[in-house]
């Protein structure tokens, strides 16, 4: 057999990212569904509540955040499930690479395919709720950090619910309570951005949550996946 170099962790992570991207291209529905869900849910509020922009503007932070959280939860259910059933996760465990690292790469891919598009959509959906486009930077900054933290939290939940048949609801019950701090600071940052104040303070807090998640969540997810595979 040909003698070749062992792959470094960066090369392995690139392989994981490439693979997730290819899969997303082959199955666009799985990527588009959460985005469509977010758009539809947000657009329901002016219809169901009031068309008055001033009133809508007051509830806009909450609507945008709950909508984005639920939409990314929809996608989280698929994070590890198929990889577990087709044996990909077993190969990750046996690859000689750190499972924590590979799962982090996978979570990053997941965020790039759900959290980031949700973030980019939010200012435009905000227009429906009377959010001025001048607030776009603050709204997007808050959602980018928030969805990132939620992807990391969700990776733990997805790992823990691997062994559970139809674990979607359980996943929401596990993940959403943990996401409360993200929701609180995220909605606050969005509100400040909408009213024209500086959201920096709330964004720093969101950033610290994102870093905390990045430090601890992959370790917990790897431990959860190992248990789930047994």
């Amino acid at each position, binding site marked *: *057999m*040909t*003698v*070749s*170099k*062992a*792959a470094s962790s960066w*090369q*392995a992570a690139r*392989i*994981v990212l*490439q*693979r997730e991207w*290819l*899969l997303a291209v*082959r*199955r666009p529905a799985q990527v588009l569904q959460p985005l469509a869900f977010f758009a539809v849910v947000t657009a329901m509020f002016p219809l169901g509540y009031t068309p008055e922009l001033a009133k809508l503007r007051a509830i806009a932070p909450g609507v945008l955040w709950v909508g984005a959280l639920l939409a990314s939860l929809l996608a989280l259910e698929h994070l590890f499930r198929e990889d577990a059933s*087709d*044996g*990909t996760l*077993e*190969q*990750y*465990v*046996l*690859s*000689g*690479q*750190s499972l924590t690292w*590979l799962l982090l790469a996978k979570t990053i891919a997941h965020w790039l395919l759900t959290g980031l598009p949700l973030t980019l959509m939010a200012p435009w959906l905000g227009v429906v709720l009377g959010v001025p486009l001048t607030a776009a930077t603050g709204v997007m900054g808050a959602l980018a950090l928030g969805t990132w933290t939620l992807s990391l939290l969700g990776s733990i939940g997805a790992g823990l619910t691997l062994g559970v048949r139809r674990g979607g609801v359980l996943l929401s019950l596990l993940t959403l309570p943990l996401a409360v701090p993200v929701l609180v600071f995220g909605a606050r940052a969005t509100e400040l951005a909408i009213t024209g104040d500086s959201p920096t303070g709330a964004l720093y807090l969101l950033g610290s949550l994102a870093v905390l998640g990045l430090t601890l969540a992959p370790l917990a997810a790897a431990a959860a996946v190992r248990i789930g*595979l*047994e």
Partner: protein
Amino acid sequence: MLVLHRLLLAAPVAELVDATDLKSVGRKAVPVRFRPGAPQLVMSPLVVKNLTVYRGERAILSRVSFELDAGRVMIVTGPNGAGKTTLLRTLCGLVEPEDGQLCWRAVPCSFRDPQYHLELAYLGHDAPLKMDLTGRENLRGLVGLRRVIGPSDVAMALREMQADSFADRAVRTLSAGQRRRIAFAALGLMGATLWVLDEPITNLDGAGEALVQTALSRHLSGGGMLLAATHQPLGLDPLRCDSLALGAARS
């Protein structure tokens, strides 16, 4: 007093004689290893001792021990539910054993040691392939986690398993036997020493079986090791094969 003195003297003298004896044996010790029936002085690369696995209250495996030398095969046999798959998965670190020691290349190590995993490749019942990707893409993804390979390596491995005609179709559209051929092409590229295979030749047609046999024989003659759970004969050189029979499930 004299008796005691003699006794004290006698002991070291006896030891000395023993030591020279041992030395003379020791000089021959290298060829001795290959003499049939001689005690093994060098440890096998893979030594598993007292492996015990519980599922809840039920012992799936209790105190399973075996050794595997370079270039040799261990066929794990036993009725359904005897714990063949569990044994293989435990060995790969996918199932946490209750008890048991592993020595890899004479060094005690954990079943989850990344260095050990790098030298080990596992294929389960189902080929670990992504349905929406082509065979070639799957190969790159599976092997690329372990080593750097180029398109020419992938093409060669696929050709060897005569899988190049369907390697560019989505795995979803392939038959179980074709999927297995792609999985074996990946296995060959991983460059592992110890292959752990669960029912390696199920779903394969005659030609596929022959290809897998060739691949396995080449792996063994290159000093590789194989641990396989199977009901069917693998068609390998019987002189290379040992077998490990697992009993029926205990409650």
